[in-house]
């Protein structure tokens, strides 16, 4: 199966002598297409046939109860977790595997890195490298992966830190930064590689309430700039205001998805109704 078929073909495109050459990309190729994702940990299946398509510049928020598989989906999209079945295509390229005839083989680390290069990821617990300054956290990959000269990398690194409002903290070590500042450095670190899409796994869940706003502000700004984003979050306000689409997961399946206005005001499934009711009760 060709990667391109992930994009629905216009009717008749395949008939006649003037079939589209295989390398021509459709006008709006999806950024990320996951189809039929399955994942088990041991005997426990935690993802059941998850389908998710993310278009360029779209902001998709994934919500759902704890343990529903939100992080696992995100980690499969980044191939930090090896999915057992189904496919993930990043801009049309299969991630993590390559197909030999009808069989599929694990792709080489190099190939995985290549396909994954268009993705940036931000983690709940930041995962900054504690032995490097904020600036070095942002510039190390520029230097060693992109082989950029130090001065150029540092100029770009400082620009990225400025973008997240931390120009003055470039020389601080992570231990000296607040949680909100750490997360903003982590965002700058991912942005420095110029990804086409950013994945966020509960980026504000580990923060003190008063620090949540500064991180969400950076994310809103990114969304406004047209960054493609997939955000696992418990911040319903953010989902309501920033997301183009909200995806509700429960027990390893996508139960319902749609524009936030629709999903929040008119939830169809009982489970989402329950989930929202619980959330409203708690946030009173």
């Amino acid at each position, binding site marked *: 199966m060709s990667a391109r078929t992930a994009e629905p073909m216009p009717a008749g495109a395949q008939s006649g002598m003037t079939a589209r050459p295989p390398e021509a990309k459709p006008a709006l190729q999806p950024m990320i297409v996951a189809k039929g994702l399955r994942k088990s940990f041991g005997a426990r299946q935690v993802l059941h046939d998850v389908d998710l398509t993310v278009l360029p510049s779209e902001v998709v928020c994934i919500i759902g109860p704890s343990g529903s598989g939100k992080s696992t989906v995100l980690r499969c999209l*980044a191939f*930090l977790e090896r999915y057992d079945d189904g496919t993930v295509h990043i801009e049309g390229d299969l991630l993590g595997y390559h197909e030999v005839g009808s069989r599929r083989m694990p792709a080489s*680390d*190099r190939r995985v*890195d290549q396909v*994954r*290069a268009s*993705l*940036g*990821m931000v*983690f709940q*617990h930041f*995962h*900054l*490298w*504690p*032995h*490097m300054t904020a600036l070095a956290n942002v510039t*190390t*990959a520029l230097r*060693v*992966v992109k082989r950029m000269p130090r001065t150029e990398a540092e100029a770009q690194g400082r620009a990225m830190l400025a973008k997240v409002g931390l120009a003055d903290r470039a020389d601080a*070590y*992570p*231990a*000296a930064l607040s949680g909100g500042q750490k997360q903003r450095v*982590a965002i700058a*670190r*991912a942005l*420095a*590689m110029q990804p086409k899409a950013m994945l966020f796994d509960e980026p504000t869940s580990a923060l003190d309430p008063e620090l949540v706003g500064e991180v969400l502000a950076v994310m809103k700004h990114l969304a406004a700039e047209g960054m493609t984003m997939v955000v696992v979050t418990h911040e319903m306000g953010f989902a309501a205001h920033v997301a183009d689409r909200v995806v509700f997961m429960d027990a390893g399946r996508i139960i319902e998805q749609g524009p936030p206005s629709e999903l929040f005001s008119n939830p169809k499934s009982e489970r989402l109704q329950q989930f929202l009711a619980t959330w409203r009760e708690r946030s009173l």
Partner: protein
Amino acid sequence: MDVALLVQYGPAILSGLLMTVQVCVLAGILAVSLALPVSLAVSSPLWLLRVAARTYIEIMRGTPVLIVLFLLYYGGPSIGVRLDALPAGVLGLGCYGAAFFAEIFRAGFQSIPKGQIEAARMVGMTNLQIMRQIKVPQMLALILPPGTNQFIILVKESALLSIITVAELTKTATQMANETFAVVEPYLVIALLYWLFIEIIAQTAAKIEERIRWQG
């Protein structure tokens, strides 16, 4: 305390001290450079490497260092390995220490959170780059205190080289005691010198630790 005796044997004691320092530095370098691959092999995905490294560590851990030295120096010739006392001593001490350093390194590698490695993956670093940029620098800081301890143990173990005739500090003192029948002076002096050497090591490590600014 017979001061004249110490003056008379001063040069011998000094050369013994230099020999001890030399043995410890060489054995230390050997131990550390052997320990790194062994520690990596212990958590290798390859079954054979894992078993080999584990076996090596278990054997060394379960054997007194003196026996390792005897086997190398006196037992070596029977399998065609004829080593002088000094190389045999350095090799024995180094290989022995390597097993213990390897365990320290392994613990160091394991204490680096998986999330940091995933973050490095996500910005495109290869395994080698992750090793070089993320793991090793942090590991060095983490293993400095236990590594210093292990090196101090190695310094003390180096006294056993006197038994296979290496002319280090302890050997010098024993010789002095045999020739002069003085017991207190030679052993007191070398005890002081060992203490001095170890104190220098400990202070240096403390200085380095102070300079690692990132630890919160």
